[in-house]
């Protein structure tokens, strides 16, 4: 029952919309449902990146703490986004804080579990690469624009 619903939740998410049944079954085995109260910390800079969060509902702020001032929000993520990319790349440590701005519902995938399945089924790894990379690219492109500080002068 639990496995089945995780699979459905994943299938509903834009990141997984092109995945076939078999692959979703594999991934669902690594997943669990999570809920975060408004204001709570989802993960923290420096934490081991042992999970990746598939956001189903709510807003997540990616924050970088600075001494003597409130943390700076560099990006907000919402329904349809994925939070926590550090699970993919060594040394598997989170590089920013993620905080629930509203109540947040997500499916978390256990990073060790997914990495293990990718090692066993290279095709799964390739599929994740193909469908997730465009999302990452979009975020990098958006952050480039953000860097330009376009509205500064006008």
């Amino acid at each position, binding site marked *: 029952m639990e496995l089945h619903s995780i699979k459905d939740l994943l299938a509903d998410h834009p990141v997984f919309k092109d995945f076939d049944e078999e692959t979703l079954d594999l991934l669902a085995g690594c997943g669990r449902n999570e809920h975060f109260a408004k204001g709570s910390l989802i993960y923290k800079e420096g934490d081991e990146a042992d999970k990746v969060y598939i956001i189903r509902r709510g807003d997540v702020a990616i924050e970088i703490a600075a001494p003597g001032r409130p943390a700076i929000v560099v990006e*907000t993520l919402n329904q349809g986004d994925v939070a926590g990319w550090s699970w993919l790349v060594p040394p598997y440590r989170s590089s920013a804080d993620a905080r629930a*701005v509203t109540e947040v519902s997500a499916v978390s995938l256990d990073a060790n579990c997914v990495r293990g399945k990718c090692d066993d089924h290279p095709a799964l790894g390739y599929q994740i690469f193909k469908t997730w990379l465009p999302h990452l690219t979009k975020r990098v492109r958006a952050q480039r624009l953000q860097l330009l500080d376009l509205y500064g*002068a006008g």
Partner: protein
Amino acid sequence: MDAANAQDPMVPHRYRVAEVWEELDDVTTMSLLPVDGPPRPFKAGQFNMLYAYGVGEAAISISGDPAVPERLIHTTRNVGRVSAALTRLRAGDMLGVRGPFGSDWPVEDQKGRHMLFVAGGLGLAPLRGAVCQALANRLEYEEVSLLFGARSPDDLLYRSQVAEWGAFSGANVEVTVDMAARGWTGHVGVVTTRLERILGTSDPANVSVFICGPEIMMRFTAQDLTELGVPASRIWVSMERNMKCALGFCGHCQWGPDFVCKDGPVFRYDQIGKRLAIREI
């Protein structure tokens, strides 16, 4: 042409400042009433040349509601000599006005569609009249949305009106900033990150978009919209170039074959999209 009696289009009409509002640190909005003759009707997206006595003229977009032509509304950011003088004007002061000039946002033609406004920074000023027009006929559009991006929560123009549009006027409003401190509960990220969501379940082929903001922001926004399926012929942008006359005489605002002053400032994206990517044109 009767040259002897024709009105010289370089000579301004005198207006007087009725009210001034401090919008942001370096941005003011003022309403103007004509001293010489009746108010001149305008369309949303057009601009005036505003003259500050002894200092000079600047092209400033009209931010008022075309349904209320009696009062000219202009929002000015202090970025140069003329705009500094304009932002120093107070109620009762006189200034010169030439206009209205240029092409307008074709709001009426988009009825039946999801009308999306994408504003960046002060780019909301030239869109304001068009938003008012669309919301006045809200039910004739499938949806009216405003996606508004600014540098930080302190740089949001027309803050209370934007909130009111969302809360009471039937607009679907999303505000996003480039940078915020913890405590800001809105979005952080450039406007392009929110396009997919604000389009929602609308058929992209039935969406019309007016974009106004820095040129790079308009370029990327229009590109992303076409990737999402919005036809390039349903996207309009508002361009900015140096202008001295607003009549097509001074040559400064040329952008490829177009004079931004009279062929623009509002251009349809399918007609100029390629040009947006050409450097230093």
